[in-house]
């Protein structure tokens, strides 16, 4: 009885080994481990335009698949990260970057926290001075 249970359980577990034949998608032949790391880093920093809060690395959208292939090809052709980003921005705009660039339209976005922080500190200092007197 126990032996039968053992066999049945073993067979069930064996079924899971079927998945070892599944081939991972998007395997790009990079010449070095470093290139692969760059690919992962880049695709994490870029936004998928179809599923907008997902990055290109995780997105299953067909466009994300195409863009990953494009990025992989560019890495294989020894393009630098900034060249690849510039290419994508030229076609899809800054929208594709998760981190907005520091340009005229984003000065407020980048500087406002620093300015507000300085104002708050000055306000606090003035308040302390006032209390002391």
């Amino acid at each position, binding site marked *: 009885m126990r032996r039968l249970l053992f066999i049945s359980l073993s067979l069930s577990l064996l079924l899971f080994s079927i998945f070892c034949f599944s081939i991972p998608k998007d395997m790009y032949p990079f010449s070095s481990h470093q290139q692969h790391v760059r690919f992962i880093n880049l695709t994490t920093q870029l936004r998928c335009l179809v599923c*907008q809060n997902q990055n290109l690395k995780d997105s299953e959208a067909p*466009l994300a698949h*195409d*863009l990953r292939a494009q990025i992989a090809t560019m890495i294989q052709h020894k393009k630098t990260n900034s060249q690849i980003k510039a290419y994508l*921005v030229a*076609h899809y*705009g800054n929208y594709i970057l998760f981190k907005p660039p520091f340009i005229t339209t984003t000065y407020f976005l980048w500087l406002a926290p620093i300015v507000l922080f300085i104002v708050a500190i000055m306000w606090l200092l003035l308040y302390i001075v006032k209390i002391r007197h």
Partner: protein
Amino acid sequence: MKKVLLFIPFLGVLIVLSLFYMNLKQNPYLIPSVMINKKVPSLDAPLLLAPTKHFEASTLKGHASLVNVFASWCYSCLDEHKLLMTIAKSHQVNLYGINYKDTPKAAKALLTKYGNPYKQIISDSTGKIGINLGVYGTPETFLIDKKGIIRDKIIGPITKTTWRHRLLPEIKRYQ
């Protein structure tokens, strides 16, 4: 005076909230195209109905054209197909198609069933031309002027209103 100053935080909150409210009406799925006012990128790919020939860049020169990105798997493309047929019959603009990430067989079946509004159809089975144009969904329609510069892009199906009040005046302007 001091009492008035106390209302500054309330005013601040009011400004922030009204900004939030104003942005509620924006559609986050409409990503502004950076391709507008730029030269049309290479559309060099085989033609769907004559695969031995390639699309010539010179085709777009000398007149305003509409380039419509479509696919047989795209349901909202079917929504605008009837209007595209009307536009083609009106002879007011040259309409070209880009068959995006599709199989020639499925695309041809669609054209047989619903009619072919396009002067020429570029077959972009890999989506490479789509990337060059900054396409992120179908349908998308580009308005290209007589010098080959992109002047507008409609994301999603064209409606009668967009055709009459947006595209038609632009076509007349860039003709």
